[in-house]
């Protein structure tokens, strides 16, 4: 990276996200950020640190601990012409606001016969890996991807953390952004995008010919590491980052499977009824005659994520699991 001489700067996923919010607040006075501890505290994961000082308490609003109501208030404000960014601390807490997200945000446009679009962006942390145990560690983004009427994004790179927010705010409909907790400290060089970032397409993070590793969010670094290991053994894996979980980029999945004829789907959520299951189903629907091996899945163990480090690691998809699954499909 960077060898081509384009302009670049060293940053982190967290800072990239903060920069995206700052840019949005600067460029559009309808935008405001609201959520628990986004102001004085600086955000539970430090994303909004410093924004209160820059934009003041009207636009960086600390809310009471009332997920349902501050998400609902974001929906109401969006209906009235604002462009709210609502932060929920973790996906587990978002269940308290699920009523508002499903019954209002995702539904109002249709239920009103097209009269009421809801241009809200809801951000939240997802995923495990930090020993936060069973009420702060789950990956429920697949549940949200089940819902028609919303867009679900999972930025897995610094570039996407930096550049997905602006098109999300421009979308007239609700957009949910899932930030995997283990990515915040990801650091690297941020290059200006060579083309506008879109919210519709999956990305090939590494091209390959022998097998497709299909993943998103916090599992992307693990999939890339697995691809390195496989390459050392002579297996060229293609790594697909879904980026958008709804709508799914069917064409990209099908194109990759058509190239490689084998696929491993990596999803930190539980296997049963999961987004991984959805991807597998679509491969079966669209690419059945391309398959030269059963599709493999690497998901979390079907257990509430435990606290103890060894147990937590055993519960989550690991690079070695991905490599093993790839071997089952290829060997």
């Amino acid at each position, binding site marked *: 990276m960077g060898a081509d001489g384009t302009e670049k700067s060293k940053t982190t996923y967290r800072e990239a996200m903060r920069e995206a919010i700052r840019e949005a607040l600067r460029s559009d006075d309808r935008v405001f950020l609201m959520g628990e501890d986004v102001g004085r505290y600086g955000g539970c994961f430090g994303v909004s640190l410093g924004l209160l000082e820059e934009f003041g308490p009207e636009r960086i609003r600390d*809310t009471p601990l009332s997920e349902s109501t501050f998400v609902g*208030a974001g*929906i*109401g404000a969006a*209906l009235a012409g604002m462009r709210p960014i609502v932060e929920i601390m973790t996906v587990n807490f978002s269940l308290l606001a699920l*009523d508002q997200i499903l019954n209002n945000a995702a539904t109002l446009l249709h239920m009103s016969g097209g009269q009421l679009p809801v241009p809200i962006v809801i951000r939240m942390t997802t995923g495990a890996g930090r020993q936060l145990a069973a009420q702060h560690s789950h990956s429920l983004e697949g549940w949200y991807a089940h819902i028609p*009427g919303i867009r679900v994004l999972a930025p897995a790179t610094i570039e996407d953390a930096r550049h997905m927010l602006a098109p999300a705010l421009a979308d007239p409909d609700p957009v949910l952004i899932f930030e995997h907790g283990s990515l915040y400290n990801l650091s690297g060089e941020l290059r200006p995008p060579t083309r506008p970032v879109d919210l519709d397409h999956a990305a090939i993070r590494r091209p390959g010919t022998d097998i497709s590793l299909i993943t998103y969010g916090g599992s992307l670094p693990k999939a890339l590491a697995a691809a390195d290991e496989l390459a050392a053994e002579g297996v060229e894996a293609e790594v697909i980052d879904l980026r958008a979980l709804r*709508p799914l980029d069917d064409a990209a999945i099908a194109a990759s499977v058509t190239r490689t004829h084998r696929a491993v789907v990596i999803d930190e959520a539980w296997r049963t009824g999961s987004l991984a299951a959805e991807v597998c189903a679509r491969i079966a629907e669209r690419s059945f005659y391309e398959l030269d091996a059963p599709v493999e899945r690497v998901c979390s163990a079907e257990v509430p994520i435990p606290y103890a480090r060894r147990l937590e690691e055993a519960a989550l998809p690991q690079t070695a699991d991905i490599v093993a699954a790839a071997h089952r499909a290829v060997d």
Partner: protein
Amino acid sequence: MSLARPARTRKATAAPKPAKKTARNRQGPRTAPPADRSAAQHRANLLESLLRIRRFEERCVELYSAAKIRGFVHLYIGEEAVAVGINQALTSEDAVVSTYREHGHALARGIAAEAVMAEMYGKATGCSGGRGGSMHLFDASRRFYGGSAIVAGGLPLAAGLALADRMRGQNRVTCCFFGDGAFAEGEFHETANLAALWNLPLLLACENNLYAMGTALTREHAQTDLAMRAASYGMPAWAVDGMDVEAVEQASRRAVEGIRTGTGPHFLELRTYRFRAHSMYDPDRYRGKAEIEQWKDRDPVNRLMERMRENGEPVDEELARIEQKITEEIDHAVEAAEKAPEEPVENLLRHVTSASTGPVS
């Protein structure tokens, strides 16, 4: 009706005193109470609004029985004074968020009977394009943000509409209707807290009809004085006779005026009663016939007519005129709904997202 006791919070103004004589915002929409000479006319207008809702819903019963209307249909009959009275205090700039028992709110807000009836029929010309039905009436042009069928689900939304107005310095009021059942939901308490905390221009209109579906108020609330409990959030709150349209109007004007002068959310507990079942039909096992009859003695339509009689106003002439006008209006609405086109099935996936006209993967 007992009045709420003042709550001991820093900005409690719970006693229902007339609103403080603060300087009126010049830009704020004004709705003055009717002057004396036009009081008779005003009462005639109120009577018309009440009867429009009553007759519309009576026709709905008939149409439902004939299987023209389907789904859940929740009738407002008996509670009409609340919708009509409160709407007197609102202007077209204000917003309304409603419940699933919202035919009355929609009609009082000025949505044409024709558009509502077409929606009941599920036709393309309905006010929600046939996608909502009885429980989900919408009209963005009238800032009517619809019937929400999730009890208390509309409250946070209303807080957000009010928040946007506050942030943009618009002197508008958002009125949220909800019932005594919603008062038990967390979303009510979260919203009351947030609205008071952020001083939002929100009118919380609690229609206390004594039953959350079939569960009586006393079986649902440890403390049944809802206004008093609302006042504990630090907002003016009081109870009103919801069977008296003029009393509702008076209280709403006072509350809305208070909100417009920047004193934050107000709460009205409108004590009312539905004469009919929770939904279209239910066996009414949870309440006695005698109780229903007792409340029917306080029928808001009859009460208003009695008052007009006492004042020597020409009730019978008005009634004949109004009944004929409304009958024609509703006949026309039914006829139009019968004839109206169905939304084509090709449009099934429209309005799922703003871009969607076809299948969405």
